């Protein structure tokens, strides 16, 4: 009886060790996530997601998009933050990523807000919409998957003025493809605005020696809503 118990315990231990779930946990413990910290500069800040037209807009969104004029009513002309995802698509200024096990923080020069990606929780309930939104992240292998909701609908999605609702969700898959390169694949979902999800990719280049500089947009802004 006692011998049988020992055998059973050994078999159970062997099963646990060999089970995929436990192996995965051990692997997760043994293999730290990739290091994506550092100062990165966007390789090609393309400000317009649909330069040739054809954005998959709902009628409501189409009307709002037609009223957008980058020279007169872009919210950013008055120095309001571009907001997510625009500040990950088009701003020609660098970002610095700080990485801890529980949070990834992105300081984005020039946008006056920072991003906090929480690695240890789900989205909060009853979110107040903000410019950066509520971001939660997880590592899938070498890829940081970030889910962002809770975004203000007063911002533009791109420099051309693509609108969005407060229900917009942005999924990013961020990975370091080589030592000097970070790739961010973005998927933008907002069924009341877009008839299908929008995708975009931005590449970032590591900039050793660069430091994030102060950027107070209202200091000497000559581009409030009246244009020049």
């Amino acid at each position, binding site marked *: 009886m006692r011998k049988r118990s020992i055998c059973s315990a050994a078999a159970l231990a062997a099963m646990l060790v060999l089970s995929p779930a436990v192996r995965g946990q051990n692997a997760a413990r043994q293999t730290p996530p990739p290091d994506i910290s550092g100062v990165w*500069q*966007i*390789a*090609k*800040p393309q*400000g317009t997601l649909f330069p040739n037209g054809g954005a998959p807009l709902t009628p409501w969104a189409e009307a709002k998009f037609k009223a957008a004029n*980058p*020279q007169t009513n*872009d919210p*950013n*002309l008055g*120095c309001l933050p571009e907001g997510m995802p625009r500040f990950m698509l*088009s*701003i*020609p*200024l*660098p970002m610095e990523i700080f990485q801890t096990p529980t949070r990834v923080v992105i300081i984005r*020069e*020039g946008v006056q807000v920072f991003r906090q990606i929480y690695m240890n929780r789900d989205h909060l309930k009853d979110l107040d919409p903000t410019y950066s939104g509520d971001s939660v992240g997880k590592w899938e292998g070498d890829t940081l998957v970030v889910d962002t909701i809770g975004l203000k609908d007063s911002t533009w999605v791109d*420099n051309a003025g693509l609108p969005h609702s407060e229900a917009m969700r942005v999924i990013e898959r961020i990975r370091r493809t080589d030592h000097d390169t970070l790739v961010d694949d973005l998927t933008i979902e907002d069924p009341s605005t877009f008839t299908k999800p929008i995708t975009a990719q931005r590449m970032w*280049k590591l*900039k050793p020696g*660069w430091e*994030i*500089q*102060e*950027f*107070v*947009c209202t*200091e*000497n*802004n*000559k*581009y409030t809503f009246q*244009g*020049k």
Partner: protein
Amino acid sequence: MKKNLREFPVTAVLLLSLAGATFAHHGIASWFDMSRKATVKGTVTGFDWTNPHSYIYLDAKDEKGAVEKWTAEMGSVGMLVRAGWRRSALKPGDEITLVGKPSKDGKPRMILDKVVFANGQELVTSDVQGQPVEGSRAPKE
């Protein structure tokens, strides 16, 4: 005015377009003619070392002595610092030449590519990656 301002087409349109992309306020680049180059010589009257953009103000005299007040616009302080600029780079009274892309509406404004000092030294703005917008000597400290 015409003596001081020479404009000519530029073939490196792509390069200049990238330079325009260094502006955080994106509508701005569309107000300037990225396919042309303006060269203006005169006296510095002011230098805004500021965000979101920095500015050089310059009085240019034509052959009759009439003053035209030019404004050269640049990117953010951060971009300029990384391109080797400092707040002390310019001061009122400096005799310089501005080279850049002129405003489409004919007003005396430009997006700056570089400053050329009287001794030939140049201070060049950068593209997004921090590279000079055109081949030039590196600025001296």
